[in-house]
């Protein structure tokens, strides 16, 4: 545990938070200043991530910010594209259809699992604002 704390790269942490934060700020601006619905913003983020991932651009952001770039929705898109590219190398054309879901399988299954657990133990309530 002590080793873990001593080995934390604080600059890396800072880059991670700033990058993740900027991505979220873009989402907030889109909600406040445009008429886009949250569902559309979600799709835009995933698509942008997939396109940037496919073009090989997003990986630089991942290298720079780590989870700050992979945890937001754009990271999910990047993961889909990355998985598809790798599977194409392995399986050929059909890999483009297999790879994305395969790479994102952990995230998808976790979302379904935790969503189910949350629906069992909680009840939706009125918003605060």
């Amino acid at each position, binding site marked *: 545990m002590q080793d873990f704390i001593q080995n934390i790269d604080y600059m890396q942490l800072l880059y991670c938070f700033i990058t993740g934060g900027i991505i979220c700020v873009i989402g907030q601006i889109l*909600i406040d200043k445009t*008429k886009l619905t*949250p569902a559309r913003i979600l799709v835009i983020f995933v698509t942008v991530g997939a396109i940037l991932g496919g073009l090989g651009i997003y990986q630089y952001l991942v290298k720079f910010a780590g989870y700050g770039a992979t945890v937001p929705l754009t990271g999910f898109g990047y993961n889909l594209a990355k998985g598809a590219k790798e599977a194409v190398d392995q399986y050929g054309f059909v890999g483009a259809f297999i790879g994305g879901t395969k790479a994102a399988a952990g995230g998808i299954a976790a979302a379904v699992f935790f969503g189910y657990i949350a*629906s069992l133990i909680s009840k*939706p*309530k*009125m918003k605060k*604002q």
Partner: protein
Amino acid sequence: MEKIGNQTIKFNSPPTILNTASIVGPKESQGPLSKYFDKCLEDEFWGEETWEKAESKIIKETVNTVISKSGIPTNDIDYCFAGDLLNQCISSSFGLRELNIPFLGLFGACSTFVEGMIMASIFAESNAGNNCLCAASSHFCSAEKQFRFPLELGNQRPPTSQWTVTGAGAAIISKTGVGPFITHATVGKIVDMGIKDSNNMGAAMAPAALDTLITHFKDTGRNPSYYDAIITGDLGHIGKEILIELAQTKGYNIKSNYNDCGVLIFDKNSQDTHSGGSGCACCGSVFSGYLFNQLKDKKLKKILLIATGALTNATTAQQGESIPGIAHAVSIEI
């Protein structure tokens, strides 16, 4: 009664608003008008399993309250006009299924309460019945689920959005009585200025409110200063400003005596509802609670109540259709 001008009914022997009742949800209970409502709920479920059931219970109990306040037996109420925002108006029909009063369901979106008052007044004055009941309800959670996103999604509401009032209002309108009287009713036309944002209903409905407002003045020969208060249903902060500006350009200055139920029901600073309140219960509860009280106390003697409605649904919004607006007005005097 007779028709005057283009869209206005003048009641020659004006029907009386015998009594009113209102029940509101927890957020409305924290607002500036809380002391005027008959009942303030502590939670949005009110002991029910679903929001739809809760909304039905709210309208049912509001109707029961107005009947017991009025002191007339249920058998003596000849018709009930009621409506709400949910598909096929289920809050009203499920809530009032045990009422045993001839029922006519209404849909005028958030203008339903005044639509009901107009229908009840016409029935009462025309001898079709002596006592007519009108009611309308809405619920924040059921409305969000139907018109926007399920609350489980937990998404943010944009700054222009309004807060659907949880609650209901009900009134009994009688052929004879001591007032307050409904003297005129102006039935609105559908006005669509092409606004497509279902998170900016105030802007979509303001042109309809303007149309009804101006038509009412032209038909009756009155001007804004005739009324102690001109109150719209649920234009909210944004729609209110738009209506003041639009009226100004048409030569009517309503700035000094105009307000909106969606602005009155919540405190802008302490309750962050963004652009104010909306929903059938907004106009319904503010009139049945606050405004009726002011009329009874003679603090207001002449009011023009204009309920506004956005005649949209979730499918048309997703298909990119614009939002047709409507507004109905009643002139209430003591």
